[in-house]
């Protein structure tokens, strides 16, 4: 549903989405990187389990929530994609989990 402008000249960044390796460009948000890779849905809703995907791209709709490096409820459109990042579909509600304090 999106393709990259041919004049876009940035360094490649590789990350995974649900285990599948994807190459994005530096400066992409996680949500933009997913759209560029043809991925439309990145979460399922807590109420009905319906698939949802990025809607506003500016941090207000919370439709692009994903799990990033094990942390749920991250807004994909506000997080820049990084080399080696692990992005996963957020299935239903974010489950509280204990985290190690760094």
């Amino acid at each position, binding site marked *: 549903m999106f393709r*990259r*402008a041919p004049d876009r000249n940035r360094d490649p960044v590789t990350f995974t989405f649900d285990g599948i390796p994807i190459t994005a460009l530096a400066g992409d948000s996680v949500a*933009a990187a997913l759209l560029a890779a043809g991925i*439309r849905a990145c979460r399922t809703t807590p109420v009905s389990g319906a698939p*949802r995907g990025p809607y506003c*791209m500016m941090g207000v709709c919370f*439709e692009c929530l994903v799990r990033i490096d094990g942390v749920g409820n991250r807004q994909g459109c506000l997080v820049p994609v990084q080399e080696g990042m692990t992005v996963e579909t957020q299935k239903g509600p974010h489950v509280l989990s204990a985290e190690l*304090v760094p």
Partner: protein
Amino acid sequence: MTSITGGEAAHTVKNLADAYDVIVIGAGPAGLSAATTVSTLGARTLLVDENQTPGGQIYRSILLAQTADRQRLGEGYWQGREIAETFLRSGAQYAPATTAWSIGPANDEGGQFIGHEVGVSTGGTARLISARQVVLATGALERPFPIAGWTLPGVMTAGAAQIALKTSGLIPDGRVVIAGTGPLLYLLAAQLIEAGAMVAAVLDTTPRRNWLKALRHLPTFLTSPYVVKGLRLLRTVLRRTKVVRWVSALSAEGTGELKEVVWTAGGQEHRMPADLLLLHQGVVPNVNFSNAAGCKHVWDETQLTFRPQVDDWYETSIPGISIAGDGAGIRGAEAAALQGKLTGLGCAIRLGLIGGEDRDRHASTLKVQLTKVTRGREFLDALYQPSKAFRVPQNPETIVCRCEEVSAAQIRASVSAGAIGPNQMKVFLRSGMGPCQGRLCGLTVTELIADERSASPDMVGYYRLRFPIKPLRLRELASLPQSDAAKVAVLADLADTHHSKVN
């Protein structure tokens, strides 16, 4: 050369001071101009913004833009470069990738009010920072466009596509349909066509009767700078894609994702297979911050939205909190930059940095320019007022609250059951209580209740919003310093929540 993130960029909240003279929230044209003005006049200024680089949404990624972007997005976009560069050269401190999530009164040890305390967070660490003056420059967001199927993956806002183009050079591909109303609809359609997108159709939902209402503002509009620009955009769009006018009903269909766009025009139903549907029906002030802060808001009958009440210097009903730009009412990017400067002057006089004469001398030119750039706005407001059918869903199955999946029928039924205001609706249906905190349903819920009660939206009111206005991790909250005053404030707020009334 100044770096994109600013000479004094603070990438972690630990680098920020405990207190500033002014905190500006938002790095669009209004916020950048306010921060530049007030810091140049000698105020210790901090600008906090959620994005990685300055520009807000209208000038998103402007300092990373290349020649190709300038061609694609036009001179209107390129204007933002100077605003952002001037800001980075000013003495203001800049905290990019930083979310502001609360604002509350700050008192000294003797309990005297000394300003406001702003909750900010970067990369998982939160801080409370105080300022004598706070400028909210949180701008606008796209008006909710509740049609059946608008939650399907493949349906996005037109603004979202524009952001993807500005930040990542993404061009919509496949069968693209753009639908709605407003000056930005044609701007976006033209930009996407220039970028090489194959736009299958533009479905224009502007009601025919709006032309009658707008007609009396036409003479002024014809002398405004919008005319030439508008006609050029319109020509590009009309030449390069199919434009369907007087669209009276619209929906998106598909299982799991968008497959078809269905619309009614001239009494006939039409269908078109689509890979991407981009919706837009104007922008409205993003009131989450000002509402939660307790600023007084009024219903704007022309722009059909709530907006915070501000004085000549953009100060709200709460002393020390100002709102610059579209957040105080939609007037566009050029007006926002001028309003930002005027807001900065207002802060400066309250901080004692300038006198009344100085302020008025600086302000007089700005006010003349403001009148000039907003000329013709009445025409646009009247012409592009979205019709009721697209603000108050006609199909009862339409999802209104996307987060909690609440339908129009459920809202209407709950009004009959006694939920006469948006806050009762939260209790009945949880509408507006998901992570977006009513940003995508607030106006729809207000107008649905108003329609069901045959009352005015003004009487019905809006959700009473609560801090934090952006989700915080428990660890961030827990890491904040806990004074006795803070604990009392939390308890008082909880008590207030339990006793809150309709408005």
